[in-house]
């Protein structure tokens, strides 16, 4: 670079980006001689006139608070980029600029909108300014990270170990026969460098016990121990990795990193009832060895990448698992949303990338190359992402398959039935029956159901549906008060009585028949109307009230205001038929007597109007309306005919049999024919077996679904804002322009632009922005995106949980403040292996579990401890206390009470019998037994749990009622006939080994003394339970051997 160009470069840098932008625009041609002069004049014009005009009239919608039509004019570069409709400023033919035609009102939409045209002088200045090259003296907004002092991400930043590309490494050559696989030479080399040697290998029983606790989190039974001794280590590793319990144990580690909980936190701490699906997703994904990149992709954007996969929808629960304050004042709305966005971005950062992105919220990251600009661009990926609860078809593909298969088989059964009906001999026989036996066979019932035309409530919340038995079922949430209207017809020619049957159903409290919280109802008023000829066009003139003059019922609540007659008294709102005090949970009937017999025809229409105003939600849940022409029909439930049969009987009597009557009567005839009965039954059964879709409510994090409602909706909380802004010092009141979505520069290689990872939505897709899909692509791209760091962080977590310490000792921080890797080559080797094995997590487990490194025993010598007290070079397996879940699950398993049911909603009951991962995690009610053993509070991502030893843990082993009960359960399962035998068995089951001589003696002696001290017939039993409790308290029981 010669002096002259250097000077120019300096000038350009100091003079604003606009010159370099202009340079780019005119790259191919030489710079015009008057360029500098024009730019200077233009800049002055901009500063004095144009800038104030843009700020006052345009900026708010174009870069300030919004970016309307994709057009942002906050910087010159963006101005020249134009918007959705293309170029806005034309530097070549300035007067053709779209901007000018809009502000001149020559073109639609006029700008600024809904305002008078700008003054002519100003319009002329705009034209002049564009002619001068539309220069800016500085951006309209000091966008964050654009200032001269803001952080630039450089190649040297990318040279930090964690951000460097993975190196192809081969295990070092070591002179030893100790190594069992590729891991070991890496470890051995470092041990040798530090004057250490590996520990001896553990014995077989210890190995099997360690493997069980490490891989599935439960101790081996004596049978499993025996089996383990009989097969190879590799075979046992495979078996355990294939166990469904593997996912139940290892999912918990990821749930810590994902700050997973099932409530909002803060003051109301509302439950998130459908959040447990995320926990199930993690367990299933691990059990299925879902590739880690897919595991990550689905958690970020499963709803966009695989919307038909239930697991992918469930996976998005990750983003919405953080806390959220549901009681908000208007002043807090926006900051609460930014906190929520921060929670999503920060958790993605720490859990997936080991980066503390959240630290760049108020300023450039103090240590890592994450400018505050990157932070807001990263956050912007989640701008419109909210928590929703949606119905997900659990097995869409399977359902369609099953349905198709069912349709085929059902059609066959139907056709057989139809063929029977069409047989000539059957037809002949039926005709005979009609003539000879029909009249006697179809004896008419005293009650005939109303043939329903429609049934409706005046309240939208209630839906009335006709059921097969002619009854009407109310569903939906019961409104306080409502009126039902039912219309229909009857084949009777005269009506003397009307009956309402109030029927039970499981959908109601105490089975109803009412919808009130106690199962009751109160029919405040019953009205009947008739329209003699339904075909008549003059409705008004033809609807007539039908007078009811008395009533009787199977049960009435009292004889006064809640009697059956109260439904037809003068008071239409405060008195009515109710059935409490003996009538709840049973079918009831009320019969109303018409003042005079009502003559009707086939064309007549009846309306029954039921008012439920007595008491809140006291409407009928299920009921049936029937009519009678008898002189004294029974007052009870039943004895009714459906309308079709009533009509058929009438037709039979009158000798005017139509096709529909014949069909109805055929079913009566055929019921006597065994062949028909069998065919009919097959069809009925087939109908009952029709496959149903398996929908389930799932909490997802997505866009465009209705938000999960909460307290703050009452004040109008918007759930999200359409744009994310750059904020000064993280303060939503100090906005610095709209932040477009983007990724972290430091993890973006070869200068690739965001577009590189752009995923095109399927055709017609509108619901979501696909920003998260793009992010997922970038995150999992080892070539140009963050994929290699993603692999390093994943591998390190696995290592960390197997050894109690990661190769990077700070699993959530791979930045400059974190600890550097002790074995960087090994980390790279394993990361590479993860990627090349198709991101198989189980392959990494296998590698580790089969290594000589993992098989070392725990013994410490003073010499080794002196060289490496923290065991950072892995010269042994550090003995460590089992995690809270394994401590509890081990006791539970030995008690014989472990319920192995997997998945589904969890519980808050401390004494539940499923594995600990199925405790519901409610932030205000964390499980004391989990907390006491250091299960972290689910507030932000946790990469490693502390392991504390405190007196309250000891108190738990000594006094906790649950522990005492588990010990009793354990004792129950032991052979009590001989103390020594019991102790032998106890040791085998709890510790996977036989007691030594001195242990045996002490235990037997304890049993003798303890039993004697109880001095009753239960002494032995109690003593053995007390001994089991002692064993639960052993260090050996709760430490990884």
């Amino acid at each position, binding site marked *: 670079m010669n002096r002259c160009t250097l000077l120019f470069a300096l000038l350009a840098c100091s003079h604003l980006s606009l010159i370099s932008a202009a340079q780019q625009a005119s790259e191919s041609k030489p710079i015009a001689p008057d360029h500098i002069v024009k730019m200077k004049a233009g800049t002055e014009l901009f500063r004095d006139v144009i800038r104030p005009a843009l700020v006052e009239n345009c900026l708010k919608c174009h870069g300030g608070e919004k970016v309307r039509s994709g057009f942002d004019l906050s910087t010159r570069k963006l101005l020249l980029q134009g918007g959705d409709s293309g170029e806005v400023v034309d530097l070549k033919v300035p007067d053709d600029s779209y901007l000018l035609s809009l502000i001149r009102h020559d073109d639609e939409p006029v700008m600024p909108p809904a305002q008078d045209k700008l003054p002519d002088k100003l319009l002329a200045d705009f034209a002049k300014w564009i002619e001068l090259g539309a220069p800016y003296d500085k951006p309209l907004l000091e966008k964050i990270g654009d200032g001269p002092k803001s952080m630039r991400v450089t190649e040297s930043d990318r040279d930090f170990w964690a951000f460097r590309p993975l190196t192809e490494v081969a295990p070092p050559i070591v002179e030893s026969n100790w190594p069992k696989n590729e891991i070991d030479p890496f470890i051995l080399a470092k041990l040798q460098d530090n004057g250490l040697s590996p520990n001896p290998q553990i014995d077989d029983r210890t190995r099997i016990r360690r493997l069980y606790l490490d891989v599935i989190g439960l101790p081996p039974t004596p049978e499993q121990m025996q089996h383990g001794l009989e097969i190879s280590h590799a075979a046992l590793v495979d078996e355990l990795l294939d166990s469904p319990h593997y996912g139940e144990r290892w999912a918990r580690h990821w749930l810590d990193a994902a700050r997973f909980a099932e409530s909002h*936190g*803060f*003051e109301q*701490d509302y439950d998130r009832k459908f959040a447990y699906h995320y926990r199930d997703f993690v367990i299933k994904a691990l059990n299925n060895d879902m590739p880690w990149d897919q595991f990550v992709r689905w958690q970020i954007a499963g709803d966009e990448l695989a919307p038909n996969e239930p697991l992918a929808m469930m996976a998005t629960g990750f983003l919405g698992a953080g*806390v959220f*304050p549901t*009681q908000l*004042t*208007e*002043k*807090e709305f926006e900051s609460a949303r930014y906190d929520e966005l921060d929670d999503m971005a920060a958790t993605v950062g720490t859990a997936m990338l080991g*980066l*503390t992105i959240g*630290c760049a919220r108020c300023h450039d990251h103090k240590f890592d190359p994450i400018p505050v600009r990157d932070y807001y661009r990263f956050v912007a990926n989640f701008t419109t992402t909210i928590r929703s609860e949606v119905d997900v078809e659990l097995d869409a593909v399977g359902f369609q398959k099953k349905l198709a298969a069912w349709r085929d088989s059902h059609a066959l059964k139907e056709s057989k039935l139809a063929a029977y009906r069409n047989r000539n001999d059957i037809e002949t026989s039926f005709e005979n029956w009609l003539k000879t036996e029909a009249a006697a066979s179809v004896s008419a019932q005293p009650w005939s159901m109303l043939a329903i035309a429609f049934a409706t409530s005046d309240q939208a919340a209630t839906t009335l549906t006709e059921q097969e038995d002619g009854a009407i079922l109310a569903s939906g949430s019961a409104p306080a008060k409502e009126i039902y209207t039912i219309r229909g017809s009857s084949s009777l020619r005269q009506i003397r009585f009307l009956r309402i049957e109030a029927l039970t159903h499981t959908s109601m409290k105490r089975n109803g028949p009412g919808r009130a919280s106690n199962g009751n109802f109160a029919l405040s008023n019953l009205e009947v109307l008739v329209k003699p000829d339904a075909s008549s066009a003059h409705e008004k003139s033809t609807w007539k009230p039908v007078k009811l003059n008395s009533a009787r019922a199977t049960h009435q609540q009292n004889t006064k205001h809640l009697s059956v007659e109260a439904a037809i008294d003068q008071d239409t709102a405060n008195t009515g038929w109710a059935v409490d005090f003996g009538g709840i949970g049973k079918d009831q009937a009320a019969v109303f007597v018409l003042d005079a017999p009502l003559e009707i025809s086939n064309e007549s229409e009846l309306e029954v109007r039921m008012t439920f105003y007595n008491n809140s939600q006291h409407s009928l849940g299920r009921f049936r309306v029937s009519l009678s022409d008898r002189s004294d029909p029974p007052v009870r439930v039943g004895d009714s005919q459906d309308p079709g049969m009533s009509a058929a009987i009438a037709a039979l009597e009158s000798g005017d049999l139509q096709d529909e009557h014949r069909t109805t009567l055929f079913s009566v005839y055929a019921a006597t024919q065994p062949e028909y009965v069998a065919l009919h039954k097959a069809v009925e059964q087939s109908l009952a077996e029709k496959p149903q879709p398996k929908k389930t409510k799932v909490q997802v994090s997505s866009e465009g679904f209705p938000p999960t409602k909460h307290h703050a909706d009452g004040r109008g909380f918007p759930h999200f804002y359409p744009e994310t802004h750059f904020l000064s010092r993280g303060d939503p009141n100090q906005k610095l322009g709209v932040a477009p979505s983007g990724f972290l520069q430091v993890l973006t290689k070869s200068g690739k632009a965001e577009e590189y990872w752009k995923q095109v939505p399927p055709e017609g897709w509108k619901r979501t922005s696909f920003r998260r899909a793009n992010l997922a692509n970038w995150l999992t791209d080892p070539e140009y995106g963050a994929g290699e760091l993603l692999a390093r962080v994943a591998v390190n977590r696995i290592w960390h949980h197997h050894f109690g310490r990661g190769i990077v000792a700070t699993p*959530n921080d791979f*930045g400059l*403040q974190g600890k550097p890797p002790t074995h960087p080559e090994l980390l790279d080797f394993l990361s590479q292996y993860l990627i090349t094995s198709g991101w198989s997590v189980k392959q990494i487990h296998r590698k580790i579990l089969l290594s000589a490194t993992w098989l070392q025993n*725990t*013994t*410490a010598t003073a010499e080794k401890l002196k060289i490496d007290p923290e065991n950072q070079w892995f010269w042994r397996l550090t*003995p460590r206390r089992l995690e809270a879940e394994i401590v509890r699950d081990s006791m539970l398993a030995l008690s014989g009470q472990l319920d192995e049911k997997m998945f589904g909603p969890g519980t808050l009951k401390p004494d539940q019998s499923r594995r600990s991962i199925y405790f519901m995690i409610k*932030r*205000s009610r964390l499980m*004391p037994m989990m*907390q*006491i053993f*250091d*299960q*972290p*509070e689910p*507030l*932000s991502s*946790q990469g490693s749990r*502390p*392991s*504390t*030893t*405190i*007196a*309250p*843990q*000891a*108190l738990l*082993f*000594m*006094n*906790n*009622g649950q522990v005492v009960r588990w010990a009793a359960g354990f004792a129950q399962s032991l052979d009590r006939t001989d103390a020594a035998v019991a102790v032998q068995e106890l040791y085998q089951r709890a510790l996977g080994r036989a007691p030594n001589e001195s*242990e045996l003696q*002490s235990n037997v002696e*304890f049993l003798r003394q*303890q039993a004697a*001290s109880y001095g009753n017939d239960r002494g032995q039993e109690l003593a053995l339970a*007390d*001994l089991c*409790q002692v064993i639960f*308290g*052993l*260090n050996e029981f709760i*430490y990884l051997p």
Partner: protein
Amino acid sequence: MNSLTNRRQLLKNAGAGFGSLAFASLLAQEGMLQAGEGLDPLAPKKPHFGGKATSVIWLFINGGPSQVDTWDYKPELEKMDGKELKGFDKNTGFFAGSVGPLMKSPFEFTPRGECGKMVSSLFPKLGEHVDKMAFIHSGFTESNNHSPALFMMNSGQPRMGLPCLGSWVTYGLGSESRDLPAFVVMSDPLDRGLPKGHAANWGAGFLPSVYQGTWLKPKGDPIENLNRPTHMNSEQQQRQLALLQELNQQHQKSAGELELEARIKSFELAYRMQNAAPEAFALDSEPQHIRELYGLDEKRCQHFGRQCLTARRMVERGVRFVQIYSGGMENQRSWDGHNDIYGNHSQFAGETDIPIAGLLTDLDQRGLLEDTLVIWGGEFGRLPLSQKSNKPGRDHNPHCFTTWMAGGGIRGGVTHGESDEIGHHAAVDRVHVNDLHATILHQLGFDHEKLTYAYNGRRFRLTDVGGEVISSIVG
């Protein structure tokens, strides 16, 4: 060493260990025990410099006490009674729709103590102690909403999930008591609920959970797992523990791990706790004059009196940090006087006046006040305007509140900062919540900028990026 330390020492050692025979061998390995102690996350630790206070009793006036009706006398407000406050932002409080005019305090103020501090008639007894108190009238906070403001006051930020002051103090100082939890919290025992945000107010956040506050259950046994299983007697449990220790010792001989040694020791500590803790909660052993001092025989204040007395007994036994919440959740269940400020504050002041005065007297007469810092304050203040209601109340005010501290090296009879003439905004020498925390930590011997914990790539501290010690009130 003063006599106080000796008394504490004495009480600490009072609980007897179990199975002394079984421990003979253990005690012989004194070296191992010492080493094991290094792993104890609650072992006593020294602060940055010699602090004046070694324990804290925080009387959390839950719901937001009204400054202008308690300690911050505003004669100007009296003159402006009934007038509109021009330019008032209706979204300041919680109910934008029921903003009333300025309202004078319904309580009378009279000068009290030698310093002549003007105190409202709400505190006839507590007013006697103003010469022990340092008043801060210029506090302000960042949220007008209970739970964020509670989190702010407890953890320095209006968000959920950060360690609270008590956890930081326990993390920094460890515990003096081997028989009792280091940090205890008492909430309303009258079924009026927990402070908003529940246990997150005494949570350890990202600090190890051993530093979280132990919530004493208001009913039944205050601490979990303190009682021996009902089916066995003491001798039988001791036999169990003796066997346990013997087997653990045998195992330990081959393993030689310090952590395992520490765990063996934890059973001894647990056994001592089981014996000593119930004694600490046994208020019946207190003489009549002490009962009267705390108002234990007066119906309206006995529940709070018992908690104050328990607090003293805790502090006496080396408990580091005690927090008591006056009132339950919100509205009429705590000091949250949206409706009828007169009735609300009369009730809650009535519940606490005698007990807190008794606590100060008792701590003082026992020489405990010297190194026990007592704090009185809520999560925010209340507006000088009325909130429209049947009987007028006052809405939340994040811009101004009063806190007082006493004991633990705090200067008595002084006032720091001023609110504006009507008590609406903190005006002179404004005190942010971070400043309050910095001052409390200072009294305990900490430089608040140096008490940090590394988590997810950052060194966190209670005062975040703020905090300044209020030098005028520290002795």
